[in-house]
């Protein structure tokens, strides 16, 4: 008996079972849904220092769990989002924040790409504009006359010629 649905069913079962092995955030319960949303948002914006590219929400490292617990405790005690961030930054540095704060030492980080992009755009625009001007100025009256003659002669010989870059201008 052939069962074409079997691989799909097995795959669906595996996919459904995968999260079972992972941790959940269900253990962190709040009476106030707004507080719960704040908690989720906060642990999404804080970095796990062990795995570095994972947030506290995503990381399975032991340290991430400790910090999640700490954030949870602080929020449960009624402390604000800012207090949690200040607490963690005072101990682990700005690195715990995925978005670095705006301050003089991070200006290059925030504005450097804009500056570099701006300088690049300026030079690109200058080169493009200059090219346009110069190519227009290149044709002298005699050249224009010759060009006109060539274009007028073309239909006669039957083989369309490929216009070169100069002729197109």
């Amino acid at each position: 008996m052939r069962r074409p649905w079997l691989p799909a069913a097995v795959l669906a079962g595996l996919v459904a079972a995968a999260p079972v092995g992972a941790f959940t955030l269900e253990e962190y319960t709040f009476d106030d849904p707004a507080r719960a949303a704040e908690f989720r948002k906060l642990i999404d914006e804080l970095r796990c220092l062990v795995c570095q590219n994972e947030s506290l929400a995503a990381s399975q490292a032991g340290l991430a769990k400790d910090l999640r617990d700490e954030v949870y405790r602080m929020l449960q005690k009624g402390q604000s989002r800012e207090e949690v961030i200040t607490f963690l930054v005072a101990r682990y540095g700005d690195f715990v924040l995925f978005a670095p704060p705006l301050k003089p030492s991070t200006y290059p980080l925030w504005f450097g790409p804009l500056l570099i992009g701006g300088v690049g755009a300026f030079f690109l625009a200058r080169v493009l504009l200059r090219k346009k001007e110069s190519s227009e100025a290149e044709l002298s009256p005699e050249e224009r006359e010759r060009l006109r003659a060539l274009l007028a002669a073309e239909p006669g010989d039957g083989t369309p010629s490929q216009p070169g870059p100069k002729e197109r201008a």
Partner: protein
Amino acid sequence: MAKSVKFLAPLALFLALVALLFYGLGTDPRKVPSPLIGKPAPEFVLPVLGEPQRSVSNEALFGQVSLVNVWASWCVSCRAEHAELMRLSREEKDIQIFGLNWKDEAPDALRMLRQTGDPYVVSAYDPENQVGIHFGVYGAPETFVIDRQGIIRYKHIGPIDRRAWEETLRPLVQQIKAES
């Protein structure tokens, strides 16, 4: 002249970028600088490893230059630096090596000390990372250099080997000792 500048400017920019990236190759992104340098060591009270009825606090750090070494029996690099810590505890009599046993189980930790020796004047037992968080610990081993006033002067991330001691930690410890 103007033409050569035009040629050289992109080259100079490119070389600057290469230099920046080359510098980046040599830095370790896993070493996150601690914001606690220059600040007093956090206050804490923890049980002593192996003697749960006794406790130890941050006051143990006053009056002497201390190395606060964060360690655990599960931490392979801690075992690697253990021999160097043992040597320091024998040869450097005027510093104290204070252990912070971090996220560990007391029986495992005590077994490790029995087997390989105990370089610590005392080890504070912090299985739940209560105090580790206040020190900004994010891995083991880490070692904090703390002066006689209890101010954190330096954080060494990763194992202490002979080279780290000779090149970085010893000069710093000597400078701190000369201060007061």
